[in-house]
């Protein structure tokens, strides 16, 4: 991740405002209906999605071997004939690999020699309901294991209870524990429920120095949705307008199809612009999405519909 860190700014709750849910839903619906990407352009946008993808495994049955297999896919997400057919000089890679802290070492080893960073969740992922010192220690552990990006979870109770100072202070402490690693703040928007909460939590996270704001752990009942993404993108725009600082965005969870990859990129292009289509400011937290992208890209090259069992497993 080449973008400079987002420095903390003072807590400012005066910037909060109500977000109208039906209006956000209408915009999210029409936004993706307003843009259609076909042919070579679609192939390019799907390749871009791979470059922005945090290829993720966050399961209770993760093992070092499973993580190594995922890293293999991150290094070679497409088959050679497809890469050639698309006219690419080099094999593309994913934006990062995202794992639990105890899997970081395995991932770092498997990705050695590539530029692919390892991202680790931390801070008592996914619920975050652990003592703060243990959560901070977990961040330091993951960084020590070689993680270059840390995906922290916030304490939802601080949002639901309106304790913005507590939220701000905890995120500031987490950012400090990250050191040189970039920090993505997972808001767990499915737990926050209202878009007004999402907006407020986004602003506090950015004020506290989050380099990215991220929608979900993938474990909440509702994961990344476009209205939530829209609200967070507008928060990023507003934070930039207020402070001049640039923050990235990562939707995560529930995104499975190539169509999802296009829709989220359209959201970024329309609401934040070209810069947010680069991995420095945009990541897609996904695992099964890559398989569908691979099938679509093979279809683009061959004209035949593809079968997953003919592709390398992640």
């Amino acid at each position: 991740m080449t973008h400079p860190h987002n420095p903390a700014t003072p807590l400012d709750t005066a910037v909060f405002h109500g977000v109208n849910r039906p209006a956000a839903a209408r915009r999210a619906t029409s936004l993706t209906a307003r843009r259609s990407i076909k042919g070579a352009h679609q192939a390019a946008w799907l390749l871009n999605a791979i470059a922005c993808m945090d290829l993720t495994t966050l399961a209770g049955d993760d093992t070092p071997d499973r993580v190594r297999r995922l890293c293999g896919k991150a290094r070679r997400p497409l088959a050679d004939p497809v890469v050639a057919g698309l006219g690419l000089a080099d094999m593309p890679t994913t934006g990062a690999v995202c794992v639990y802290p105890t899997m970081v070492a395995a991932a770092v080893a498997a990705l050695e020699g590539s530029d692919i960073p390892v991202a680790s969740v931390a801070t008592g992922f996914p619920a975050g309901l652990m003592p703060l010192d243990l959560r901070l220690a977990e961040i330091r552990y993951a960084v020590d294991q070689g993680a270059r990006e840390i995906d922290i979870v916030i304490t939802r109770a601080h949002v639901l209870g309106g304790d913005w100072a507590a939220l701000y202070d905890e995120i500031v402490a987490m950012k400090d524990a990250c050191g040189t690693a970039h920090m993505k703040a997972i808001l767990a928007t499915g737990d926050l429920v209202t878009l007004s909460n999402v907006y407020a939590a986004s602003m506090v996270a950015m004020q506290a120095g989050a380099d990215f704001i991220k929608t979900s752990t993938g474990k909440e009942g509702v994961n990344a949705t476009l209205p939530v993404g829209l609200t967070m993108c507008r928060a990023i725009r507003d934070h930039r307008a207020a402070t001049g600082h640039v923050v990235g965005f990562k939707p995560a969870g529930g995104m499975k199809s190539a169509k999802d990859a296009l829709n989220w990129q359209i959201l970024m292009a329309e609401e934040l612009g070209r810069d947010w289509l680069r991995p420095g400011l945009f990541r897609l937290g996904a695992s099964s999405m890559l398989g569908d992208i691979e099938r679509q890209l093979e279809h683009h090259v061959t004209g035949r519909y593809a079968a997953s069992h003919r592709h390398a497993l992640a």
Partner: protein
Amino acid sequence: MTTIPEILDTMAYGPAPESTAAARDWLARGPFGLFIGGSFTAPDDLFDVRDPARDTVLAQVTHATEADVDAAVQAARAAQPAWEADPALRARVLYALARQVQKRERLFAVLESLDNGKPIRETRDIDIPLVARHFYHHAGWATLLADEFPNARAHGVCGQIIPWNFPLLMLAWKVAPALAAGNTVVLKPAEDTPLTALLFAKICQEAGVPPGVVNIVTGDGATGAAIVAHDGVDKIAFTGSTEVGQSIRRATAGSGKALTLELGGKSPFIVMPDADLDAAVEGVVDAVWFNQGEVCCAGTRILVAESVAETFRNRLIARMKTLRVGDPLDKSTDIGAIVSPAQLARIRDLVAKGVAAGAVVHEGTAPDGCFCPPILLDKVSPANPCVSEEIFGPVVTLQSFRTPPEAIELANATRYGLAASIWSENLTVAMDLAAQVKAGVVWINATNMFDANAPFGGMRASGFGREGAREGMTAYLRKGQPAQGAAPGVIDASPATGTPDGLDRTHKLYIGGAQKRADGGASWSVMSGDTRLGHAPLGNRKDIRNAVDAAHKAGGWTKMSGHQRAQVLYFLAETLDHHRDGLDTLVPMEEIDAGIACTMYYAAWADKLSGAVHNTQSAHVTLAMREAFGVVGLICPEETPLLGALSLILPAMAMGNRVVVVPSQANPLAALELGPMLGASDVPGGVVNIVSGPVADLAKTLAGHDDVAALACAQPSVAQMVEHESAGNLKPVWNAPEGQGRDWLDAMVQVKTIWVPYGA
């Protein structure tokens, strides 16, 4: 050929063209004739239909003559009785039309985009689904008509004239309710955009529409005028410009043709300081950068609170830059082509005038050709022509306001009253504004929402009548026969013979809660045979003017609750009862008693006529409020001078209107006697104003008064004149029958549809 690595650098969207092959195959069957009596006539007297985006000829269609219109009306007339007699057939046919539209949705969408220039996204996602929705909804009304509108009859043959901005959708809005009610139709699509109507004609054959039930005649304004003028047409429904609407109002005056008009607008778009500004910015996109701004209800006047004006303006200007203007058939196009070069020239001309008048202009970008970029005219004064004139293009003005009352003042400073959009996260504030804005449709935190089960239509010069829902069905059903009373005689204001019976009695006009001498300082003798009943003050146009002014000052009546008004009306019944023995020198006792009963009847109704909550989309409350017009003119019948007057005054009052009454010319004294009784019954001054005199003169002044919102006329001798004069501000004129009932209440209110989307 752009390579994938190149695209990865730019992340451009690239082209996403919709195929026109099927539409062009269909167009190749042209040139097209007229659809009359279930089949197409031989093409004749052809004119070109152009694709505005590519400046090419799409097809040639027939210019219908007067004889063609006559043939269409004859076919419609012949088909009508059997059609009205078979509601089950009507339901089946309307259902089949809904299905046929869905089965041909892409062909319709592409053809509409080619013909009109609107983006394929909109025809595909908005126009055509709404068309199908409209036919489904009205298939249901055909089934339910007998249950829900017992004893109602169709008008007969409906002449329907529609505009070019939503060609097929406006056809559906006109044809579906007309057919459901048992009418047959002669429809003229706009000269610029007749193609989807012709495709619809073909679909009618496939759907089993009986010959003559739907007739489609293409042509220009002359064809439309021939429909309006045709004696065999029972109802005219028109959507289009206010100017043409006015000429249709004049042309149909006194003809007995029913009339509904859906005309222009200059709708306010009010952004309160607590609005979700991003939602409101996107609202502007949906309001005026939808359909190239060629939308009658487009929110073209942004009124934004001063405290958030700068932020809002900056975000709006930023948003304009991401709108894509260009090929309507590209799926990534937001704004397509303007319908014609003439319309583009009109838009550009008006914008130039607006800039000359001081507007600061912000423009997006658009390709060469018949395209117009999104335009924001900032820092406009209310006197700027772009604030008052309907532009019908992607042009929006921006003004700021300081307080909610000022927002309403600016919002209502227009001759139109079609729609309004209100943005506030505070529902208390939003509903207050919605209640006060003069508009037939109000969207709260939304804009341009439509549904077959939501009434749509305007107030003021935006026309009258509603389309959609139960309210829209009533526009295609006949009401009672207008009163057929005697014409007024001659007023002789010179002193006459006859001696007073006892002490001389003086009757004065009743204006603003006080008895007033007539401005002209004259009276005339009111005779009953050789007996002089008394002298009546001879009112003139200035008395009418004063009465209207007094009525405007009595706005408190309109704000009162129905219960409060009921108490006053019950009290009035009591007062009438108390005075029945004095009144019987002027009218028979039976009439007085009927008048008292009538007062009790409308007192009963005053707190009971309720609006509706319509079932439209999920997570939306769609209210159809009943609102008083405000100031209403009432032209009373000659006969039953007391009961006739009360039959108009009471329903108007019960619904919260203030009235200016022109009583019977033969015997105005009974109505004039009401004046002091109203005062004694706690009716506030100005709510009822009574001006006696020459009915034709007084009615003409009332009908022509731009600050009178509606008229009820139970004097057939002046009906034609009144309808003609009403065209000035397009006040609805109701030719009132004798009697009492719900129809009288419905005639005294206008529907305001309020959309409230919700979601936490």
